[in-house]
């Protein structure tokens, strides 16, 4: 598994364009032009405005950047946690492995949506939208690791019984040496986990937003925008409401395609 550079470049390009849109002078994702709600596309608002008269293009761009940055960070955290737990479980005593996987199963069986709602309602109300976005992704990361850890555990078990490890022992290598050399072997294991988690978190945030959890107003989020699609009455207003979904699908496909299997 390795990174497909051209697709990564495409995604990076999209992020650059989005940043330019968000940072352009005069652009604001929260300014309400109340006399121009559901405006059609114009020179001023290239993708029209939403139900509160806010520029849709700026909001979609900001949501894209927020979701992507949040998901990448959450994914990195999850993967790191999963790597730690999975390795410990595989290389530690059998009882530790059993216990770790039990914890994973318990975590996987948790009603995570309910948990997220609990976390959300326990947050101080004064938590700023930016912080609540960060916490949302942190919670996603905290809930996302077990599935990942299971995969790492399986990979690490495979590694543990690898021929080269036995040969290394037969050559008299110390355990520390063996572990040090095992680490690079984890990258092909962790990279796909990392890459798979990113779109998963983007979708999870979108789901949360669609439930009214997740990122708070006026910060735009993909989930909040998907909410617009919830009723057919809204869809009648303007075709531009499909724009965030279209971009979300494109980004998900890009994220999915970024990790290509070698061979």
């Amino acid at each position, binding site marked *: 598994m390795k990174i497909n550079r051209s697709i990564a470049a495409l995604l990076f390009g999209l992020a650059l364009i989005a940043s330019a849109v968000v940072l352009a002078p005069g652009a604001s994702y929260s300014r309400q032009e109340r006399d121009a709600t559901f405006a059609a596309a114009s020179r001023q608002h290239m993708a029209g405005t939403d139900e509160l008269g806010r520029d849709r293009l700026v909001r979609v761009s900001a949501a894209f950047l927020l979701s992507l940055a949040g998901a990448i960070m959450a994914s990195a955290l999850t993967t790191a946690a999963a790597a730690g737990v999975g390795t410990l479980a595989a290389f530690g005593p059998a009882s530790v492995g059993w216990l770790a996987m039990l914890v994973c199963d318990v975590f996987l069986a948790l009603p995570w949506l309910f948990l997220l709602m609990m976390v959300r309602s326990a947050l101080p109300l004064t938590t700023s939208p930016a912080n609540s976005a960060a916490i949302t992704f942190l919670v996603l990361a905290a809930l996302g690791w077990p599935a990942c850890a299971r995969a790492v555990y399986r990979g690490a078990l495979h590694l543990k*019984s*690898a*021929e*080269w490890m*036995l*040969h*290394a*022992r*037969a*050559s*008299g*290598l*110390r355990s520390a*040496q063996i572990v040090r*050399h095992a680490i*690079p*072997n984890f*990258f092909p294991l962790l990279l796909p986990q990392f890459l798979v988690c990113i779109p998963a978190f983007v979708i999870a945030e979108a789901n949360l937003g669609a439930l009214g959890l997740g990122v708070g107003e006026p910060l735009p989020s993909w989930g909040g925008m998907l909410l617009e699609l919830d009723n057919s009455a809204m869809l009648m207003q303007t075709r531009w409401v499909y724009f965030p979904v279209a971009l979300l699908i494109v980004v998900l496909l890009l994220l999915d395609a970024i990790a290509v299997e070698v061979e």
Partner: protein
Amino acid sequence: MSDETLLRVNLEAAYPGKSILRDVRFELQRGEILGLAGTSGAGKSTLVLSLLGLLPWRGGRVSGEVELDGENLLALNERRLRELRGCKVALIPQSPMTALNSAISLQSHFVEAWKAHEDSGRAALDRRMQDLLAEVQLPSDRGFLRRRPSQISVGQAQRVLIALALLHRPQLIVADEPTSALDPVTQAQIVDLLRRLNRRHGTALLYVSHDLVSVLRLCDRVAILDSGAIVECLPVDALHKASHESTRALLETLPVPLDVLLSFRNSAAPEPLHLVIAE
């Protein structure tokens, strides 16, 4: 046990709920090449792991004795065992591609194996590697050594593993089907290489294989392993006198009559061998 006896084995081994080796008894003289032949499933790989004290890593259990140079390996703790492994007894594994760590360079393999038993610096290792690589007929330039295991051929990988086994000049090398993954030409080259090394350094070799042809070509004596027990052990030259039915069954699988093979073995020794014998 005479001074000439390097290894004396008497062991039983089992995985949880399943006995693999019931009665394995044999001896190996210093400098000798002993072939260990048997059909697949006879317990050859288990025996190899048992000899090196590695069976516990695979979840198995060994009892009995593996006396190497008067020291019972099975009675040693892991710490002392590690010191012996790779230093006094080394392994040439079965499948060269998986036995090398695909994430690190060939050079690193040598550096780590060196550091496991030697405190002396890189210069000593470099000198030793020059000799070794020449001996196993591999290039010793930096470009080659910087390669990953996936970037060399299977035959080259097997030579790297042989070089690694020889690194600390062990008294005994256990070769576990070292040719099974190779094409016939490379097989022959590797067998010749092992034989040459044995002659030159006097390293004793336990050659485990299901391929009786290569055993006949290489070994002084043959032990036949059948369903977890050594059923017969006799010099290669006396193989036609074999009495046990599994030995006979093995012999019958030979593509060419036994005496033809034996005559080939005695006449077709490659050039360097003569030189070594002449020493």
